[in-house]
């Protein structure tokens, strides 16, 4: 592929760039959202799942006889029985046949909360009652909890068939790492710990399934945000041909990476619907979701080395990462692909080494949580940059400025092979410093310190990759071990203009989950046809008979919809122009699109509006050119904008995540050394995600992501005890922030359009969660410099902070 050339910002857009109210909100404000648990089908049953109390145990026997006789119970399926009814769930990890993942545990339970039986009853209350009557005999095994011990001195194996607890290990060397390290003036080293957290959308994952015995068709209402991809896996597990399975998307009350495929809930409900012949609802309750959901984030141990020159120039970066994946490997190495896509951040670094050791343990398997591993990667990089500044005695802003990729160097290829399409990192940094009043804050900090207060400032400059490519599913492995070298991540839309000229856009794998799919699609259509976005209808199509679509993930939605809608609009407009030319008897080339219609160039009275043309297209066949089909209905499948293949030896992974945004966050905090609490005094964030579609909505992503990032830094932790027991079981303990725990974010924008995408849009959905942890860590360091505290572990809870203070210095 040819390397793209930079483009100038778009100034001539009508709707794109306007903060119009979202088209979804009026119904949500009336309580008419119709989330998964709001769906009721006639004669519907309710499922509840009995879960393992042990992290690691062999299932000796399951006796469900009492449960089957309990009031209201219609059916019970135990884990061993389920293994006969449905096949394994899809696993994108290496050698999935060696770590088989099932809807219910069949032979062993491998984490607390793994399902061992499902009950369906007339009410959820009765189903839960019956769960308590199921007798499971367990042979309790030593749990594998610590990933380092799991490798060096394992008390057992999570999956015997693997023969090890390491599910994947490889070192990637990109560029002259050894030479760069040898030539460096200084090697800065750090050991870092990024603890497990979870997305916890307020709406859990669920499914309502209905099986039509007559047609053999299974319909499952799901809040999966990626139903089209999910359908293949679900069909395989259920043993239903994929053209007889229809996953119907319903809106999701938050995702943040979770609810990607929702295989477990889909298969649970569908299995039981087929078995009972009645519709079945399975919606996770909060415990189901926390213990056995698909939204647990990265859980990493980092050893980081940065090779630097005396003047502060970065030469090379080495990362050694141990990842505690939990019991299965549903998303493969995806979270490391996300990290490697921007492994060197916004900095010009000439070489990189990335060693990853992925370990399975007796914990809930990871899923995806906003950032999908790039959050941890950004944090680790920004930590080592701060340490380099400390060791070199340089200012933390200046060391960053010195190493930022220059604005004239784009498009820029990083050592790992990925391309950064565009950017102006210096402009973002300068804007942020000004918006935060960095100089003013430095003075304020000194004044407050003089009063004995522990005040600090933190800064990060970091990137946000968007629009993933399919090579990251397989570039981990040698070519010989890859069956299909996937390169497609399509997104299809259908655009329809009815006889009255009204527009309907149909999406195939993009439900609403808070991220304004309907508003985005409406605005993009409105931009093409000069209509009001409120007048565009949006349909969310089920998977059956649908167009190819990969759905959200990796901040791709807006970019992909923009490409697809522009493509479909072009086809419709092409047809409209032909009809206009035919009816006005002019040459097509003499027509121009002006304000919702085609007119003869320079002769505005000779025009046809969309409404007139739509009427003709549907009802006046004789006005159409010879051979033209009636109607106005076009599909367009937009695929990845820029993808290149990895090198055979994986010394270069090619381009797979090329739409790269950039941000600078600055924060001032005060730490109370007595309690260890951190108060945020001020916060500024400047982002550049290319052209903005709805700036207010995008700002919502920045603030929401920053709030999650603040909690990542300070409070949220999904801890397990030494025996593998998950500790936080309630929202009292898993400390998601309230309105009092997060800052007012002073938001600024730069807009460097992407040369690769429609309208120059880049993805920006992961936003603040990729930046805030590093900024908060740096600010805490700065506030506690008298105690020589450096944050090397997140979350920096009050108790940890007090521990660091007590250990590092005198109180």
């Amino acid at each position, binding site marked *: 592929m040819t390397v793209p050339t930079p483009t100038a910002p778009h100034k001539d857009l009508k709707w794109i760039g306007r903060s119009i109210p979202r088209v979804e909100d009026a119904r*949500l404000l009336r309580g008419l959202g119709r*989330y998964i*648990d709001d769906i009721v089908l006639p004669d519907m049953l309710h499922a509840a799942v009995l879960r393992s109390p042990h992290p690691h145990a062999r299932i000796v026997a399951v006796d469900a006889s009492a449960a089957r006789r309990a009031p209201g119970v219609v059916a019970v399926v135990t884990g061993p029985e389920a293994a006969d009814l449905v096949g394994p769930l899809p696993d994108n990890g290496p050698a999935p046949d060696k770590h088989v993942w099932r809807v219910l545990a069949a032979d062993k339970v491998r984490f607390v909360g793994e399902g061992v039986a499902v009950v369906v009853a007339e009410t959820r209350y009765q189903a839960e*009652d019956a769960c308590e009557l199921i007798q499971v005999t367990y042979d309790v095994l030593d749990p594998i909890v610590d990933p380092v011990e799991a490798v060096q001195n394992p008390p057992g194996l999570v999956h015997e068939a693997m023969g090890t607890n390491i599910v994947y290990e490889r070192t990637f060397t990109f560029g002259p790492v050894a030479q760069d390290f040898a030539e460096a003036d200084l090697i800065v080293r750090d050991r870092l710990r990024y603890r497990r957290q979870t997305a916890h959308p307020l709406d859990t994952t669920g499914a309502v399934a209905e099986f039509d015995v007559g047609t053999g068709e299974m319909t499952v209402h799901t809040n999966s945000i990626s139903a089209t991809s999910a359908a293949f896996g679900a069909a395989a597990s259920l043993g239903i041909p994929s053209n007889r399975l229809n996953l119907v998307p319903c809106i999701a009350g938050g995702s*943040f990476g979770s609810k990607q495929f929702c295989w477990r809930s889909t298969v649970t409900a569908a299995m039981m619907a087929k078995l009972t012949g009645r519709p079945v609802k399975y919606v996770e309750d909060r415990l189901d979701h926390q213990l056995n959901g698909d939204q647990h984030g990265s859980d990493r141990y980092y050893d980081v080395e940065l090779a630097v020159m005396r003047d502060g120039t970065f030469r090379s970066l080495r990362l050694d990462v141990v990842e505690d994946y939990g019991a299965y490997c549903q998303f493969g190495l995806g979270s490391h692909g996300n990290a490697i896509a921007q492994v060197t951040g916004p900095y010009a670094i000439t070489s990189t080494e990335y060693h990853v050791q992925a370990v399975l343990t007796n914990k809930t398997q990871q899923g995806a949580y906003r950032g999908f591993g790039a959050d941890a990667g950004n944090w680790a990089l920004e930590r080592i940059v701060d340490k380099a500044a400390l060791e070199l005695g340089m200012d933390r802003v200046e060391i960053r400025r010195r190493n930022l990729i220059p604005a004239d160097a784009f498009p820029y290829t990083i050592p790992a092979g990925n391309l950064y399409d565009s950017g102006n990192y210096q402009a973002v940094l300068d804007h942020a410093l000004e918006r935060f009043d960095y100089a003013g804050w430095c003075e304020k900090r000194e004044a407050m310190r003089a009063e004995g207060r522990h005040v600090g400032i933190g800064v990060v400059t970091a990137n946000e990759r968007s629009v993933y490519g399919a090579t990251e599913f397989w570039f981990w492995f040698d070519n010989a071990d890859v069956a299909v070298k996937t390169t497609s991540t399509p997104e299809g839309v259908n655009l329809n203009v009815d006889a009255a000229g009204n527009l309907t856009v149909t999406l195939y794998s993009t439900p609403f989950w808070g991220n304004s799919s309907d508003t985005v699609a409406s605005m993009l259509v409105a931009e093409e046809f000069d209509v009001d976005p409120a007048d565009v209808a949006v349909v969310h199509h089920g998977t059956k008979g649908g167009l190819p679509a990969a759905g959200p993930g990796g901040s791709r939605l807006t970019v992909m919809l923009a490409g697809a809608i522009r493509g479909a609009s072009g086809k419709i407009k092409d047809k409209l122009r032909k009809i206009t030319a035919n009816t006005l008897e002019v040459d097509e080339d003499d027509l121009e699109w002006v304000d919702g219609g085609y007119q003869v160039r320079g002769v505005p009275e000779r025009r046809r509006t969309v409404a007139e043309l739509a009427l003709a297209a549907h009802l006046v066949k004789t006005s159409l050119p010879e051979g033209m089909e009636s109607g106005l209905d076009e599909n367009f499948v937009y695929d990845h904008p820029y993808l290149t293949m990895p090198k055979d030896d994986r010394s270069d992974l090619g381009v797979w995540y090329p739409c790269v945004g950039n941000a600078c966050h600055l924060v001032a905090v005060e730490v109370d050394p007595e309690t260890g609490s951190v108060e945020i005094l001020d916060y500024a964030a400047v982002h550049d995600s290319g052209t903005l579609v709805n700036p207010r909505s995008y700002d919502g992503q920045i603030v929401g992501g920053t709030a999650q990032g603040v909690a990542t830094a300070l409070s949220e932790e999904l801890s397990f005890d030494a025996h593998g027991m998950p500790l936080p079981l309630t929202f*009292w303990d898993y400390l998601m922030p309230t309105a*009092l725990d*997060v800052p*007012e974010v002073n938001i600024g924008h730069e807009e460097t359009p992407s040369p690769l995408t429609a309208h120059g849009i880049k993805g920006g959905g992961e936003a603040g969660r990729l930046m805030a942890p590093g900024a908060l860590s740096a600010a805490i360091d700065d506030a506690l410099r008298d105690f020589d505290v450096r944050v090397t572990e997140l979350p920096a809870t009050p108790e940890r902070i007090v521990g660091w203070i007590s250990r590092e210095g005198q109180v």
Partner: protein
Amino acid sequence: MTQLDSRAPETELLDPELDTAPGTVHEVVVTVNGRSRRISCEARKSLADALRQDLRLTGTHIGCEQGVCGACTVQLDGRTVRSCLTLAVQADGREVATIEGVAPDTDTLHPIQEAFRAQQGMQCGFCTPGMVLRTQEFLAQNPRPTRDEVREGISSSLCRCTGYQFIVDAVMDAADRLSGEQDQ
């Protein structure tokens, strides 16, 4: 759990209307959004489930069933409560207000709802009904709040999407709209 004794103790103290064995169906009469509604349910049924399942008022959302998240917040006799931590039988004879009753009609939103829409004080919408009902109560008590007071006031509801900033904008905007109404 052990098997329950389904026999009710025999004593004259027990009111036949209200003293019941497990599993007994109670007749509960609640005024919901101004309309008297009858619900037949077990004693253990939460008000949240009764509203959602029996009355099909699914705007009251269930997020945690632990009383923490606030998605199930409704007003009981004019005060916000967690409907997941209130039994339907406890609401017997009382007045409940849910999100479905906030807008005056099908064409018009309440000024608080208008403010949330104008400010994009929401993303996924799951916490929104509870937020709106709490905002209504909060602004009745404090019609002209500061931003910090708003943060305190809405801290009883978790929102996972917005980071709250635009919700605070919305509540401030709502305060303006409601005060404007009063001034007229």
